[in-house]
Structure formats: structure tokens, C-alpha cells
């Protein structure tokens, strides 16, 4: 059955043993390909995740370095420029840049909703010494040109803006139209996300850069800055610098400086890199282990079939090492094929993903050159896995003595194997007995097949789990916790009358007040900086939800914390914590913790709004509102909000939810598709090889059954019953494995930004089982076709 190519290659080889290898390989080409694909999947995952991991780190570091991304940010209410000198002289500070940072609303043509955002100042002349921008198009604002603005590249492109277009912007209540002179990227906005949001939305969150003087005028802050950004000297302690800054800037209303760990864009990028690291360490070993087993099983079978030939070779004077090397070369050819497919596919997939990352993260460049170490690593693990599997099988061949090897092998003895006792079980028919005894006669092989299918089920279930977890996060965040349609934040705290004014705006169905205040919590020597939220008791719109899905409200005079805040402090319900408000007259007070709840997205520290107003020593002030609106009148409302002077930002929860869902469908959908294929490759590799080996071992037996008058279907049952049995046992085992892997992912991939809930939808198991069953069935059917070609006559001519 050898076709021309194999014959030609074989004939071209000098060593006769190598010709034999090529011809033998050709004979088992489908099995070899199935193994190579498993190797390829492992190598590809290794290349993609390790390569992407490396690339993302390199890119991030290079980008941060070239554009002088700050180490520390120090916001203040308003400080004179002269303070910059004092900051520069602090121990450990290498560079300082002071700037004006203003929240803004953009009135974008074609978008009825207001887009929120920030406007940052650039020095009148020269480049900023910290936090530079990368112009993708156009230029920086010219000195003295008040109306010029540079926009964040993604935002400008999302709105189809061109250089020279005008954008109308509301800054501190003043509406002005600016002329766009450039598009830019910035390391501060690798992940461009609005404060309080969980997904980036290029349409609804924008960043602009203006000349310092122009922005000072618009924001009414002549000669003052409200944010300093610092780069530290190498080896300088961030904590010490932050403490010194906080002391220095306290008179200027500093809520507290923070480092990169608390910078939202960097936090998202770093969290993504950590997730890739988890994938890179977990998946490739699974694939390569499966490949090693497959190589071992297939070669062991090949050697069993070639006993006589091996005996002959040794009788002719070939050394044992020649025999071992002969079979090892088999594996190496398979490994090389898998390696080539994996490296090629992995590099291709890596570039594809790199392009996705550029798009998603707004990197000006992406360094995707796979380091030699990744290739070397892939080469080494493949060699180890495949070569190791082959050596074990080869050694078995080498141990055969020539005389013994040339005798036909005796019939396998079932009398002492597990399953002999089945004779007493009258309920089985003989075919079922054959299936059970064959399975139990080689428990190692059956165990491996079972494990292989289970791994495939587990991988699939755990990648599907991400969809379930994200769905649960969306449900908890948007449908239980944040049920408002719009969140409005005010330029500065205003009396309650502002709430009533908002409630009367067209289209507003309900409005609830909120008071936010930056604070530091202290407990037992630990400190956490948080945004304290004051909300009315029994708030309907934005609520903290406990693990049972019930809303929780703090009893009067107490506070509720989310677990991610409470845990690092070591706080339990009933403890008293010290709270230091870091704005206004900076009151310090102590308050009991009424409850600690687990939130899936973001953190929360909640007090009753009246309590918060009281400790702040103020009247009933609000810093924003949650609105439920009539969608039919949204456009009218948005128009009002865009023109309202006191509004600093507007965020639209419905849009955010839709954005999140799109991101999930597209981004996660793609990865799950890829993992389904990879898990399928394992299933195909394991099932096809198991059935194929079983077929070649039992071909004679099956032919005899046909002779005895068994139909094709009945004979197929004997052949495929074993794999069906093992697959059915593997399904629940795989689901358990999937549950375990999912738990691991939930733990390993949760960050400060979000916590993956450990929730697996029963349908996930169903879908997974279905996919694996289909794969197993098709692999079985591929072999079943051979049953139809069974040569009954030939089977009877030999004893085996």
C-alpha cells in the first residue's frame, strides 16, 4: 500500500534500516500524524504563550522606558509650580513633571451620549520629562495656540476624526471647541479605561493633551498644577518616596501619591501578562506528556508486530543499540514533524495575537521576535518527551533475544489478568466479555487512554469555564450590583439640590445620590488606599452584593468592605478600623466593620451617605448620582448632560455591558475556539491511536468473528466498545479534572481588578462531553472503515 513518494524517499536512503523506517512510518502515517499534531499543539501553545509573554514584557518595558512612563503619581488639589523644585530634591527622585489634569466631557459628532475623558497638559516648549506621548499623526500644540488639542489615537479613530477637525469639550463647565492637531499614544493609556469602568471603550473614553497655558486658562488654574509625575532613581524605595511626597504635598490637598501598581492601565497590562504566564506554565507540559505516551504506545505496538524482524536483524548481527536507535529515529521524525508544525503554527498564531494586542492595547510597536530560548525550549521538551517515549519502547525491543523474537508470540494469557472472573457474571454476552477482558488485560494502556480523553475533556471544560465565569461576572456586576444606566460625577461636591435637579432632567426615572471620598484605611499596622463610597440605606441602583446575591447595607455608624480590601488589612467583621480621609480637611475617625463581602469586579468600601457627610463635617453633599433612565429619551438627556456645567464625567453602564459582552464574545470566543481545537487534537491523537492499535492487534480476531457469522456492526462493537467504554468513564473523570483546572484558573487569574467566580454552568459539561464524544466517534469511524475491508481469508492462513 505504499505510494510513490514514500517509495522514492525510501529508495534514496543509503542505509537499508532507514528505508525500512521510512516505509514503516508511511504505513502508520495517520497515527504518526495524529501524534505529531499533539506535539504541534503543545509546541504551539508554548511558543504562543511563552513568546507572547516575552514579547509583551519586552514591549511594555521598552515602551515605558522610551516614553518615560512615571513610577509615581502625586495628585494634589492645587499646588504652586515652585513645589516642583522641592519634589525634585526629594531623596530618590530622578525626574519630575508637573501638569494640569482635568476631567472633561467630549461632545462627539454622531454620538448622542457624552464621552468622558481627561485632558492633560503638555509643557509649552520641549518634551515632558515624564510621561511622553507618541504622535501617530500630526503634531503637538504650538506654544500660545489656545485652541489646539492632541487626541488619544484610539478615541480619534473610533470617531473617524481627521487632523483639523474640531471637538467640543466641556471642562469645568465651560464649553469650548478645540482643533485637533495630532493623534497620540501614551504609556499611561496602554489600556485606555475610564475610572470606575471595567472594559475599555474607545468611543466613550477619550484623552486629550493641550498646551499648559491653554489648559490652565480653561481650568482656571493659572500658575498651579494638580498632578506631579515622577521617575525614581534606580534602586530608590518607592514607599519612602511616596511617604515623603505625601508629607511634602499635604498642605496642597494631596489625597496620596501612588505607584505603578495602583495605576489602572499598568495594572491591566500586568494582569494580562500574569495570565499568559499561567497558561504558558500549565498547558504545554500536558500536551507533551500526552505525546510522549502516544509515541511509547504506538512504538511498543509496532515492535510487537515486528518481533520476528527484530529477531532477524539481531541474528544478522545488528547490535541492540542499532535496534534502539532505529525505533528512536521513528519518534524523532514524528517529533520533528510536530515541532515544525508547532513552531510554524505557533509563530503564525503568535503574530496574529500580536496584531490583536497592538489593537487592544494601543502599543505604538510590538516586539514579537521569538527569542532563541523559546525555540530551544520547545526543541528540548519535544526531544525529551518524544525521545523518552521512544527509548522505553526501543529498550524493550533490544531485550528480545533473537531466537525468542523469531518465534511467533504465544497467545496473550487472560487467565491471570483482571477480568478472568467475569466468567461468573452471566449478564454479559461474549463480545462484552471480550471488550472488558481486553480492557483489563492491559490496564496501563486503558488507563492512559482514559487519562488522555479525560485531559482533553478537562482542558475543554476549563476553557469553557472562562465564559461561565465572565457571564457570572457580568450578571453580578451589571444586573445585581450596578443597575443604574448612567453614573454622573460632579466637578466638585454639591448640595442635595443638585440631585433633585438631575432627577428632574428629561428621561430620568430614578436618581440616587452618592458621595465619594478618597481615604486610607489603617488596621494593625496595615494600610490600604481606597475610594470610600457613601450611599443611602436601601439604595436600589448601585449596591454591594454578598455571595448569596443579596444586597447588603451598612447599619448606621459602620462600614462594609469588599474582601479584596479587607484581606490585606487582616480585617474581619466586628473589627474597628481607622479611616483617614485624604481630601478636604482630612478627618480621621474609627469605625466598626459591619460586614466583609466578596465582589467580583472592583473593590468597595461602603458607608451610609449621611454618616459619611457627618464625618466629613459637611452638609448633605453629593459628589455624583446614579440614574435610571428611559431609553427612549436618552438622547435628550445626554444633550442636557453635555451642557450641564457642574458635570465632570458621565459613564453609561448599558454601553459598558455591551462592550464587555462584545469583548467576551470576540476575544474569548476566539481563544475558546483555539483551545477547543487543541483539546480536540489530544482527543483525536489518543482515541485514533488507541483504536488503531487495538485494531492491528485484533485484526485477526475480528476477521475470525466475521468468518463465524458476526455482522460488521457486531464486530465493530467488539473493536469500538472498548474505546466507547473508556470514553464514557473518562467523561466524568474529565469533568472533575475540568472543575479542578477551573478552580486553579479562578485562583491563579484573579487579580486586584477582578475575581473570577468559581462557577461552572452544567451546560459547559454537556457541551464538552458532546465535543469529545463527536471527536471520539469520528476517530472510531475512521478505523471502522478498515473493518469493512477485513480480509477473512487471509486471516485464516496464519496462526496469529
Amino acid at each position, binding site marked *: 500500500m505504499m505510494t510513490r513518494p514514500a517509495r522514492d524517499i525510501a529508495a534514496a536512503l543509503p542505509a537499508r534500516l532507514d528505508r525500512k523506517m521510512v516505509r514503516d512510518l508511511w504505513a502508520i502515517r495517520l497515527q504518526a500524524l495524529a501524534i505529531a499534531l499533539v506535539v504541534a499543539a503543545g509546541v504551539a501553545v508554548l511558543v504562543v504563550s511563552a513568546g507572547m509573554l516575552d514579547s509583551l514584557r519586552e514591549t511594555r518595558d521598552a515602551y515605558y522606558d522610551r516614553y518615560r512612563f512615571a513610577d509615581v503619581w502625586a495628585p494634589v488639589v492645587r499646588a504652586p509650580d515652585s513645589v516642583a523644585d522641592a519634589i525634585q530634591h526629594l531623596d530618590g527622585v530622578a525626574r519630575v513633571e508637573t501638569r494640569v489634569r482635568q476631567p472633561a466631557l467630549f461632545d462627539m459628532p454622531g454620538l448622542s451620549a457624552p464621552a468622558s475623558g481627561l485632558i492633560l497638559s503638555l509643557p509649552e516648549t520641549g518634551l515632558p520629562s515624564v510621561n511622553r506621548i507618541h504622535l501617530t499623526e500630526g503634531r503637538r500644540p504650538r506654544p500660545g495656540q489656545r485652541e489646539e488639542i492632541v487626541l488619544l489615537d484610539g478615541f480619534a479613530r473610533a470617531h473617524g476624526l481627521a487632523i483639523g477637525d474640531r471637538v467640543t469639550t466641556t471642562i469645568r463647565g465651560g464649553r469650548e471647541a478645540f482643533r485637533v492637531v495630532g493623534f497620540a499614544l501614551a504609556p499611561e493609556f496602554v489600556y485606555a479605561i475610564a475610572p470606575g469602568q471595567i472594559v475599555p471603550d474607545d468611543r466613550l473614553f477619550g484623552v486629550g493633551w493641550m498646551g499648559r497655558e491653554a489648559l490652565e486658562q480653561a481650568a482656571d488654574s493659572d500658575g498651579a498644577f494638580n498632578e506631579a509625575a515622577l521617575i525614581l532613581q534606580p534602586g530608590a524605595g518607592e514607599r519612602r518616596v511616596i511617604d515623603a511626597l505625601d508629607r511634602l504635598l499635604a498642605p496642597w490637598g494631596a489625597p496620596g501619591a501612588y505607584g505603578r501598581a495602583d495605576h489602572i492601565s499598568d495594572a491591566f497590562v500586568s494582569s494580562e501578562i500574569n495570565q499568559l504566564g499561567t497558561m504558558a506554565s500549565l498547558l504545554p507540559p500536558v500536551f507533551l506528556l500526552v505525546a510522549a505516551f502516544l509515541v511509547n504506545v504506538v512504538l511498543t505496538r509496532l515492535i510487537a508486530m515486528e518481533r520476528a524482524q527484530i529477531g532477524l536483524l539481531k541474528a544478522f548481527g545488528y547490535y541492540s543499540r542499532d535496534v534502539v536507535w532505529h525505533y528512536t529515529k521513528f519518534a524523532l521524525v514524528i517529533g520533528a514533524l510536530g515541532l515544525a508544525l508547532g513552531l510554524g503554527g505557533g509563530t503564525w498564531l503568535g503574530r496574529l495575537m500580536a496584531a490583536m494586542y497592538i489593537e487592544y492595547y494601543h502599543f505604538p510597536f510590538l516586539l514579537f521576535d521569538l527569542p532563541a530560548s523559546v525555540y530551544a525550549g520547545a526543541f528540548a521538551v519535544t526531544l525529551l518527551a518524544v525521545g523518552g517515549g521512544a527509548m522505553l519502547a526501543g529498550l524493550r525491543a533490544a531485550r528480545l533475544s533473537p531466537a525468542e523474537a523469531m518465534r511467533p508470540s*504465544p*497467545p*496473550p*494469557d*487472560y*487467565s491471570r489478568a483482571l477480568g*478472568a472472573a467475569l*466468567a461468573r457474571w452471566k449478564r454479559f*454476552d*461474549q*463480545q462484552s*466479555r*471480550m471488550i472488558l*477482558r*481486553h480492557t483489563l*488485560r492491559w490496564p496501563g494502556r486503558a488507563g492512559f487512554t482514559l487519562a488522555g480523553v479525560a485531559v482533553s475533556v478537562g482542558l475543554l471544560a476549563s476553557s469553557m469555564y472562562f465564559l461561565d465565569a465572565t457571564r457570572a461576572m457580568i450578571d453580578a456586576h451589571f444586573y445585581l450590583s450596578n443597575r443604574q444606566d448612567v453614573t454622573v460625577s460632579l466637578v466638585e461636591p454639591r448640595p442635595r439640590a443638585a440631585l433633585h435637579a438631575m432627577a428632574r432632567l428629561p428621561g430620568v426615572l430614578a436618581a440616587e445620590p452618592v458621595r465619594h471620598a478618597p481615604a486610607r484605611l489603617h488596621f494593625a499596622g496595615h494600610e490600604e488606599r481606597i475610594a470610600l463610597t457613601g450611599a443611602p440605606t436601601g439604595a436600589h441602583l448601585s449596591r454591594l452584593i454578598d455571595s448569596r446575591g443579596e444586597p447588603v447595607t451598612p447599619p448606621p455608624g459602620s462600614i462594609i468592605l469588599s474582601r479584596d480590601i479587607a484581606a490585606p488589612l487582616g480585617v474581619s467583621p466586628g473589627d474597628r478600623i481607622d479611616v483617614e480621609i485624604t481630601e478636604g480637611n482630612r478627618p480621621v475617625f474609627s469605625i466598626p466593620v459591619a460586614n466583609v463581602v466578596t465582589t467580583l469586579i472592583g473593590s468597595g468600601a461602603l458607608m451610609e451617605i449621611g454618616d459619611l457627610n457627618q464625618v466629613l463635617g459637611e452638609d448633605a453633599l453629593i459628589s455624583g448620582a446614579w440614574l435610571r433612565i428611559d431609553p427612549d429619551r436618552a438622547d435628550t438627556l445626554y444633550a442636557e448632560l453635555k451642557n450641564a456645567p457642574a458635570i465632570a464625567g458621565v459613564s453609561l453602564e448599558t454601553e459598558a455591558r455591551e462592550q464587555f459582552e462584545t469583548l467576551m464574545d470576540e476575544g474569548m470566543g476566539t481563544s475558546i475556539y483555539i483551545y477547543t481545537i487543541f483539546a480536540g487534537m489530544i482527543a483525536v491523537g489518543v482515541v485514533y491511536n488507541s483504536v488503531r492499535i487495538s485494531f492491528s492487534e485484533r485484526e*485477526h*480476531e475480528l476477521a*475470525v*468473528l*466475521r*468468518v*463465524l*457469522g*458476526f*455482522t*460488521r*456492526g*457486531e464486530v465493530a462493537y467488539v473493536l469500538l466498545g472498548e474505546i466507547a467504554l473508556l470514553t464514557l468513564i473518562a467523561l466524568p473523570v474529565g469533568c472533575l479534572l475540568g472543575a479542578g483546572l477551573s478552580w486553579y484558573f479562578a485562583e491563579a487569574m484573579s487579580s486586584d481588578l477582578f475575581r473570577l467566580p468559581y462557577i461552572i454552568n452544567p451546560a459547559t459539561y454537556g457541551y464538552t462531553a458532546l465535543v469529545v464524544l463527536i471527536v471520539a466517534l469520528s476517530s472510531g469511524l475512521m478505523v471502522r472503515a478498515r473493518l469493512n475491508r477485513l480480509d*477473512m*481469508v487471509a*486471516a*485464516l492462513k*496464519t*496462526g*496469529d
Partner: protein
Amino acid sequence: MGETPPSVPTDQGHDRACFQTRGLTRVFGEGTTQVRALRGVDLTIPSGEVVVLLGASGSGKSTLLNILGGLDRATDGAFEFRGRDMTTITDTALTRFRRDHVGFVFQFYNLMPSLTARENVELVTEIAADPMPALEALDLVGLAERADHFPAEMSGGEQQRVAIARAIAKRPEVMLCDEPTGALDSATGVRVLQALKRVNRDLGSTVLLITHNAGVAAMADRVITLADGEVRESRRNEHPVEPEALSW
């Protein structure tokens, strides 16, 4: 258990021939590598006889037996089983034919290593229309007390007798035996032949027996000699001897 096509209708009367072939031809391969294994075989095998097929290697004995047993199809010519044309029926009907009417015994016993002696017999009795109990079949070949042993625990002769028990348990109308004693010593071989003769006598099965061993022909009712794919001689043996009188 899969398909159940209509059984091949047969006439149980002994007056009709069990097998009748006309111009049966079997060609393997094509062109220069073509081998004509059977060249127009015309034969009539009456029911209830013990028939021995003699002939050198390559004379076409096994090919003829395989076609009569429904394992292979003729390239040309026709053959009937109890008056029913077997050359044009479907594969499924051929499977049914083997299942219901034919018992096979081979030189290499072809037992299922994963089944005990009794289970090997039950493998066939489970799908047969009117089988005898497995233990009875094993008793007929003198192996009732070894019923729960696996093939790996039995001698060659014992394995062959299990194979015969497997073949007779369905009460087949035809027993097709290809060199059943080829791998056995003389004493064991005689026991196997005794078992076959007993089936012929007790169940009325027609027994077709291929052998290299001309001595075995003495037990046959009819001896057919093949050479080069043709019937060289077909003669009736008026005085068949009992198997125990044979030796080689």
C-alpha cells in the same frame, strides 16, 4: 445485534445435494500477476457425507472451501447450497448463511484468547438459531471438564477440539475444516477426527475436510482430488473406516 436478513431457505431433505457447483472459477490479481486458483470446478456434494479434499499446495482446495463457506466470492461460475443460488446474494445474506448453516474449523484454531473454552463456544451459540448447550458441545469433544480454561492454558489439540465444539454447537448443516489436524500429532489428530465423525453421525452434518494427509481419506464417504484448480478425481469410498483405525 445488527441486521437480521431472511434466512437462506433450504431444503432439509438428504435427497438433495448440499453443494452443487458449475464452472466455478476464481482468479486472483490482474495482468501478469494473475493467478487462476480455480478453473471451472463442477462438483456435487451430497448431504450428510464426510468429504475429504486432497491436493497439493496451490491446487485450489482452500479457495474452493472459502467460496463454499461464503468467505470469498467466485469470479465466475455458480454454486448452490441446497438448491439456492449463492453467487448472487448480498454480503449480508452471506454473513447470515455462515451464521446459520456453517461451522468452520481451521488449522490454526482461531480461538478468542480473551474468552474461556465455554465462552468461545457461547460466542457462537448466542447468535445461532437452534444451538446445543455449550457444555454439551464441549462434552462431545471430551473437554467438558476444561470448560473454564483460557486458550493460553490449553494444549494445541485441546484448543482445536474447542474450535470443533464451537463449530458444532450451532448444529451446522455443513462443517468446513481446513487442515484441522495439520498442527497436531497423530494421537491428538485422531481424537479431533473422531469428534468430526461423531458430528456427522449424530447431527447429520455434511463434513468437508481439507488435508494434505492422504491417510485421512480412508475415513471419507467421498474423496475429491484437486490439481491446478480443477477436479482431477471424485470417487466414492464404499468402505470408510473409523478414525481410530487411522494413523500417520
